[in-house]
């Protein structure tokens, strides 16, 4: 009996403990999340900062695999007779000012394939923004803009009548234009819950047990040539002289991925087809006689500086001296370019636009387009890099802001 009683007490205790643990892990509403970012949007334009996608929504959204899915538009049908697509607005969507979002008939000409139309509609710049009487932008997302100080800070508050359900957080305080060391300091002092960190610091944070979040590769690190000083042979020599492996293993601490392609493997699926091997003897042949190129990179960014210096060391073996120079007078510059879309076409088009390379309209596949874009080595892709965030221990479900909640058991 005593043994049975003891077993019962233990069983009850275990059940009570399990119940308490379950309660702690269950999302809870409320709280303020403090975020810091380097981004400096001047206006609440959805295309200027990622967090604004939680304020202004698009008709169509790309899922994690890059496939379009209905969002503010619940469905779409084709009218061949009138050569247009009709998009049906989602019901019961309320704007941040309490008004019902009733756009009426939404039609798009069918002069392009529907896939392309949907990808375009998924772009942040095509988000639904309604102008209030005072001219301020009003959205439909889970958060509304309560305060906006251009390039400095913004306060987002929960949209209680959000069609997808109220977000867990009451408020998100966002400090913008923060330098990485400032973000790190604020994080260490407990003044921020979420900060960006360089991927080169990932190991240090992990060694300390700090929760970090690493996204799939979201930007490309590449060399971009300008002017005519470097011809095709010189550019190819530079590409062949760079030891990507050493940079990846040591400087990037094996974060991201080595790549000779513009799109990362998870978006394009073919990046391994582009060569990344080093061939110094061939590079030396191509670079003969020795050349000097003005080389620009962001010397304030420790990672960029380290990679730039390493590239200069690599190319010097091939007889190419990369002399540090100001960005305006450079023959070649080391660039970080964002990959703004999970859709390969959208991402490639955006990269081509950023790199000012003519778009190969005849290309049948993203792979074909990329082959054309990279001809002549005007751009030399080096690595695809992820975003990395350090999180305070109370933050849960990052990075989807609408799903983030704060664990009350953890101190801020």
């Amino acid at each position: 009996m005593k043994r049975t009683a003891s077993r019962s007490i233990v069983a009850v205790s275990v059940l009570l403990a399990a119940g308490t643990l379950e309660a702690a892990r269950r999302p809870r509403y409320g709280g303020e999340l403090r975020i810091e970012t380097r981004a400096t949007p001047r206006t609440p334009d959805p295309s200027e900062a990622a967090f604004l996608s939680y304020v202004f929504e698009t008709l169509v959204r790309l899922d994690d695999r890059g496939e379009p899915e209905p969002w503010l538009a619940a469905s779409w049908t084709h009218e061949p007779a009138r050569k247009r697509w009709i998009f049906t607005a989602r019901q019961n969507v309320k704007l941040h000012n309490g008004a019902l979002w009733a756009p009426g008939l939404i039609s798009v000409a069918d002069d392009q394939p529907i896939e392309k139309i949907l990808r375009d509609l998924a772009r942040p710049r095509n988000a639904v923004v309604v102008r209030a009487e005072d001219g301020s932008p009003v959205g439909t997302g889970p958060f509304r803009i309560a305060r906006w100080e251009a390039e400095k800070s913004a306060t987002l508050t929960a949209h209680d009548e959000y069609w997808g359900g109220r977000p867990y957080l009451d408020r998100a305080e966002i400090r913008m234009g923060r330098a990485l060391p400032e973000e790190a300091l604020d994080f260490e002092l407990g003044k921020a819950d979420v900060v960006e960190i360089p991927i080169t610091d990932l190991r240090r944070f992990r060694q300390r047990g700090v929760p970090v979040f690493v996204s799939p590769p979201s930007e490309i690190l590449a060399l971009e040539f300008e002017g005519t000083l470097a011809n095709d042979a010189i550019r190819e020599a530079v590409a062949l002289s760079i030891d990507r492996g050493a940079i990846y293993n040591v400087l990037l601490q094996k974060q991201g991925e080595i790549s000779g392609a513009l799109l990362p493997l998870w978006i394009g699926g073919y990046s391994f087809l582009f060569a990344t091997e080093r061939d110094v003897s061939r590079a030396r042949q191509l670079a003969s006689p020795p050349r000097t190129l003005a080389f620009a990179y962001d010397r304030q960014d420790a990672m960029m500086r380290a990679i730039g210096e390493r590239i200069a060391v690599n190319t010097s073996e091939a007889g190419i001296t990369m002399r540090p120079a100001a960005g305006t007078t450079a023959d070649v510059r080391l660039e970080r370019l964002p990959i703004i879309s999970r859709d390969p076409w959208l991402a490639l088009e955006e990269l081509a636009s950023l790199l000012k390379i003519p778009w190969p309209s005849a290309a049948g596949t993203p792979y074909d387009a990329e082959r054309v874009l990279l001809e002549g080595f005007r751009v030399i892709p080096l690595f695809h890099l992820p975003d990395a965030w350090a999180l305070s221990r109370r933050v849960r479900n990052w990075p989807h802001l609408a799903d983030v909640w704060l664990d009350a058991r953890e101190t801020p």
Partner: protein
Amino acid sequence: MTFRTKLLFISSFTVAGAVALVTGAVSVSTRRSFERIDRERREAMLDQFRRELDAQGQDVIRRVEKAAASPGVQQIAAGAAEYDRAQAEADAASLDFLDVLQPDLTIISSAHWPARFGYKNDWQIAPEDWNAADAFLTRIPQPEGSATALAAVRPAAGGKGYVAGARRLSPEFLKSLGLAPGLRALLWLAPHEVVDAKGGVRDPEKLDGLIAEVQRSGRQANGVVQWTADRSSSEAFVAFPLSRRGRLMGVLLAGASLREQIALERSILWTGVLVGGSGIAIGVLLGWWTTERITRPVERLAAGARAVAGGDWSTRVDVMSQDEIGELARAFNHMTEQLLEQRERAIQAERVAAWRELARRLAHELKNPLFPLQITVENLQRARHRPEAEFDEVFRESTSTLLAELANLNTIIGRFSDFAKMPRPQFESVDVNEIVRVVMKLHDARFRAGGRPKIEPELDLAAGELRISADGEQLRRALGNLVLNAMDAMPSGGTLRVRTARQDGGVRLEVSDTGQGLTQEECARLFTPYYTTKHHGTGLGLAIVQSVVSDHHGKISVASQPGLGAAFIIDLPGKQGDPL
């Protein structure tokens, strides 16, 4: 240049040369003394530099050993630290350069060039440098070039790999040398990278020649560098190569300012110039006084000689000394005395000869009429015994003859009297061409006289008037004599040509004939009074011409050759001075 001037120059140059020689000798001696002192000071500085280099080397070794023993380096060597961890270790050990190396010298982490991980260390480290007791100089590559540094190598704690650390040779290193005033140490580290204790050196390219000499020879070299246009900015350098295994790591330049030396040299130079200038001035004065004493007798001799040459044979010079100059003066005086005696003898001889000639001419002239006089008187004496009518006839004839001959004698005597009584010329403005025309007109009848060969007159007169200041009557007389002379020279006829022309502000009058001409001896004696080549002449015609020309301050000459005629040329001045 006069003898006095030459003597002055010689004495001045002698003084100036002596002063320059002394000044130069003092300057050279001073410069050598300075150079010797500077060389000693620079050698001392080099010794001090070597000692300081040793001390700094020991310090580097201590720092590298400290780094090699640090836990951080052990982590790096074990591959358990970030690739740029060496920077923190270098800062902790106060090293400018730090490489943590694998046993095969592959860089694990580099403090000064983090991007070089995975590459071989390039500090020219040889196996004997591992665990070497001493530090060594080397060139360390950097992104911006390379730096000269004092390096040491030690094994990393735990036996995995090595630690190579170094400190840059910098201005601070040179400051520690504590140099004497006027001395300066420079470090050439790379082209156009030269530092001294204060930092970078301006115009480092001025050292290129010296550095190139050190690079070429690999040995110590000397040179002087002038930093600015001012010569006192010059600095004498000894360039000492800092080499290792035949490779030049840097050059230590021990410099000594030449400012004081140049200032002293300038002072000596100016003193020399001052002394030299004073010497020259004194030399000039002394030379002037000396040469005055030496050249005055010589100048007197020269003046005497000029006077003798001018015709004053009575000139004498004072004999002021008993030396060679005095002897020369005595010889000069003796010479002029001899000349005077000889001239007196010549004049006396000439006078005697003239009198003899005059006597002969007078005898000849008087003899001719006297002989008929004598015959006539003797005829009268003989006719006294003849009948009266016959005597009367003889008497009339004889008296006529006597009168004629007496008139002849009177004429002869009158001519001589006229020559003796040549009047002084009365100068007035006359036209020479007009005088020529008048004279030629007077003799025109003679030119055309029958019974004798014809003489053709030719006039070649200058255009316009030829006015000069002259006595027209005397000029007509002289020209008439020359015309008569020419006519006499052409007994077989010929051409008599008279030409006038302007000549040096005066007039040239030329009378020429086409007669038998004159010998040289005749030409020489032609103007001697009473000399004539004619049987009936008195020898006074040309003498009168010469007298007239002389009274007009003119000049007469004759040009003739036997058989080719003769030409008498008279040059007369346009204006007359004081009358003779």
